[in-house]
């Protein structure tokens, strides 16, 4: 126990300032009212859905939970069911085999809900494109509010995308 406490003290606080929302990431006009955004801004629940990615985007979403980005410190946490979620974070081109699962997850998420598409593949299918096995981008299957580009996008870009989704449109 002593070693653990000593290490925690030695490590100190690594958390960096959160990025500002970026309007360029928004693809749909903000649908939520200010009162809702005020609530979400303080306690936001996210459900991640991998719809067919190569798993690099997951690595960066996992990194958003590390001490440097410390997403939980902003009141945002990942939850284990779409029923608990305010936002869906979707990675990958949507494989045809995940199309139904993604639609069901979207339907299971209570209103008001937002969707953030993470990565170049989620934008337009990326390097995998659209094919016999891939529907291409996430927007071809469910409505998307914010898109974060990158292969994979950096954790700051992902955080910025989430913060954009819950900020008032300027």
């Amino acid at each position, binding site marked *: 126990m002593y070693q653990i406490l000593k290490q925690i003290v030695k490590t100190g606080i690594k958390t960096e300032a959160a990025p500002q929302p970026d309007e360029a990431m928004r693809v749909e006009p903000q649908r939520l009212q200010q009162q809702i955004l005020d609530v979400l801004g303080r306690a936001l629940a996210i459900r991640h859905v*991998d719809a*067919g990615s190569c*798993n690099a985007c997951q*690595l960066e979403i996992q990194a958003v939970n590390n001490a*440097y980005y410390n997403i939980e410190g902003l009141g945002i946490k990942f939850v284990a069911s779409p029923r608990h979620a305010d936002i869906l974070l979707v990675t990958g081109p949507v494989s045809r*085999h*995940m199309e139904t699962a993604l639609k069901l997850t979207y339907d299971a998420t209570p209103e008001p809900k937002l969707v953030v598409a993470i990565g170049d593949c989620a934008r337009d299918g990326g390097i*995998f494109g659209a094919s*016999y096995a891939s529907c291409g981008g996430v927007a071809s299957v469910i409505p998307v509010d914010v898109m974060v580009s990158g*292969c994979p996008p950096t954790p700051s870009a992902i955080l910025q995308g989430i913060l954009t989704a819950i900020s008032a449109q300027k």
Partner: protein
Amino acid sequence: MPIKHPNLQPEPMNGAIPAWHGKIAAGDLQPICQGVRDGGGRLLALWGSDWRVTQHGFVLHTLLVNEAGLVCLNLPLAEDHPVYPDISHIFPQANRMQRAAYDLLGIYAHEGGDHRKWLRHGAWHSGSFPLRKDFDAAQSRSDELDAYPFVHVEGTGVHEIPVGPVHAGIIEPGHFRFSVVGEKMLRLEQRLGYTHKGIEKRFESMTLQQGAKLAGRVSGDSSVAYAWAYAMAAEGIAGITPPARALWLRALFLERERVANHLGDLGYLGSDVALSFGFAQFWILKEQMLRNNAALFGHRYLMDRIIPGGVTADLSAEGRRMIEEECAMLEREVRLLRGIYDDHAGVQDRFIGAGRIEPKLAAQLGLCGLAGRASAQAWDARVQFPCAPYDRLDVQMATYRNGDVAARVIVRFDELLESLRLQREILVNLTGGDELAMPLEKLPGNGFGVGMVEGWRGEVMVAVHSNAQGNLARVHPHDPSWQNWPVLEHAVLDNIVPDFPLINKSFNLSYSGQDL
């Protein structure tokens, strides 16, 4: 020559690892496989290709490995009746590969016990095969629901827990069907293929250079290993060797990928047993390393830094100093954290004995990579077939016998520390020449090459066939997860359901790499 059989005249293949290929007849497949199995060899990969446009029908490729090298058996199959003898009773790991070969190409293992579909769910019709050259995507499109006959366990008090495809964490999709009594798992059956996105078909429309990018995205956490294996296969076909500096840099990238993944998984293994301190600490180290990757090489996961012919990123003297400092810091911190994990009674109580795979079962099922080495399967491609620059690095392989979560944690720690030592060795040797790549625009016609690289998870293999014009006719990437997923079904038996996430994470297998 690794395999002797009267009906096999193997020709040596050009390339960085010792490999041969040869044509066989259907009747020889099982005897040759049995001979390799009896001699301690393994099945590395199995795939098929369509050569009907050149009047050569279909071909089944069976890639075997033993201590002398790789041998690819090429079995021509009749166009109208592409059937071959089942080998899953010799190599159990062939089962899913044979089923995938049917789903994608329509070649069929005769008399195999299990003919359920594997990679196909409902996206295309049964009876149409995406990897056939005359496949019509629009015509074959289907929206049928996936009806998959799981094996049911019956008896008093037995019930099923279906999990997925959408999982509770930040992980890839797949379906797990647990049959349990109380808390105890009686059976686990996996249903994968959810992330199937047509990677192999995609390769066929790409140039050599585009293919390198795609290879680096077969499984994002093993981007370096795949890009290197792809480049190795292409360079073998072209008969070129990249500049020495490029090879040293590739090894540096590969070891950095290994360290980053082990750091991340060791953190998760801590949080999976409620020691969130472990996640916080290891992910600080991982983040520092990824930031150094971005600063030094321009990409956090080193994607697209390896191309056929060489590499695209160099290391400056200043960068070398940064890596030296990073290695020293990581060595100090990892040793300290290892001490904390080792001394923590709660952590060890969960790790020890969980998800055990005995060495005998591991050998039988062909468990490979780091999970294999934790169950006494002493295979490491960097040691067995040390291609440059590993021939000058003397890699110390980490092995352990216990085969439980604790053993896989020990192997990860050992490999992580060894990778830090290797990085330092590489930095010392990284001298002379500033050439980073040889030009390799296009492949020679009708070539066939294989590349194999020991990624952090296990051996990653990429096979490349070029057509008469030198374009990519068929590319088959093979992930070690093909071998290890079925073994996970055994690892969980008699464990309790709440230990599944821990056991699963200790293997950390790729969905995308197997679903293709």
